[in-house]
């Protein structure tokens, strides 16, 4: 299969993942769009290194979250390299949808977590099991369990406060 076609199929299947990671790690739509572009570009660059030892989404999460961390260093310093009307994806419809309010609330709560907890909760919300979370994050499965219960407690407290 043509590499570009295979890549296009992979992205189309996991575009939600890219949107969600980009959105959680940024504070505004411009940064989110920049980050989603950067994630796709980095995924493309390392597409050959994906050896199907893990699932596609596991590999994509690992790359996307690492790129998001890298992007945190660059925010506010780098201008977008591709004009907005020529982006890989267009999230305008989502930005004006009804779900956006709920999404913003969720984002606000997750934003109060530190970067490690943020990474874990993203994967938990995406229904990854403890082994997969441990594999992507690079910590032990038992630590994932402990961390998750603490994060849930923190989030519950935040929900009660809000």
């Amino acid at each position, binding site marked *: 299969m043509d590499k570009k076609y295979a890549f296009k199929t992979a992205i189309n299947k996991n575009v*939600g993942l890219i949107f969600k990671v980009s959105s959680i790690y940024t504070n505004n739509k411009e940064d989110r769009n920049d980050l989603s572009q950067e994630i796709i570009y980095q995924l493309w660059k390392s597409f050959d290194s994906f050896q199907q030892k893990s699932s596609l989404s596991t590999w994509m999460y690992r790359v996307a979250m690492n790129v998001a961390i890298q992007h945190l260093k660059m925010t506010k310093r780098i201008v977008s390299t591709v004009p907005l009307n020529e982006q890989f994806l267009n999230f305008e419809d989502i930005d004006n949808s009804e779900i956006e309010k709920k999404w913003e*609330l969720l984002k606000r709560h997750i934003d109060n977590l530190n970067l490690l907890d943020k990474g874990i909760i993203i994967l938990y919300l995406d229904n990854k099991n403890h082994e997969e979370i441990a594999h992507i994050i690079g910590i032990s499965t038992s630590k994932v369990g402990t961390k998750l219960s603490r994060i849930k407690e923190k989030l519950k407290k935040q929900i009660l406060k809000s």
Partner: protein
Amino acid sequence: MELDDYKNTWDEMGEKVEEKQNFNPKILNKMSKSKFNSKLQKIAIPEIIASIICFGSAIYIGFQFNVLNTVLFKFVGVALILLFILLPAISLYSVQQLYKSVDINKSYADTLKEFTVQKMKFYKLQKLNITLSYPLLALLMILVTKLFGKHTNDENAYFMIFGFCFGYVVLLFFSKWVFKKYNRIIRQADDLLNELST
């Protein structure tokens, strides 16, 4: 919002995005080309401008060295040249460290550890820069009166006293505010590193 609602919102958002999008891979080639140019943009412009000013000042003092006729002025001149080289060097080094690219295939925890260590280093270097601004300001005041002061000694003294006081008050408030912010960031980074290593 309950925890279960989180999951529903998460899933709903994913579905919503997926039904609306169609990835356009044609831009990939264009992006590969523009990435090359963006490497230059990655170097922070404010840091470069500030560094040029500092290096320029060091060169200027070097050229005016023969005007500095006493041991004290010569000492001040040398110290200022060193500070004008050291300060931007620290700044450029810390920015360059920030832009070090990470291996995106590493685990998230490893990337986070590296990022946190770099972040702590960056803020510690920034603190050092601000601390060095204190002697820089004092030495600068002495040299400015020598190089540009064409007035009587009394007027020079007034200028120095006023300049010192004003500069130090501004610097004191600025550094107090910035240090408080930096210390909080360093503390948080330290906590995260502890969490990652246990």
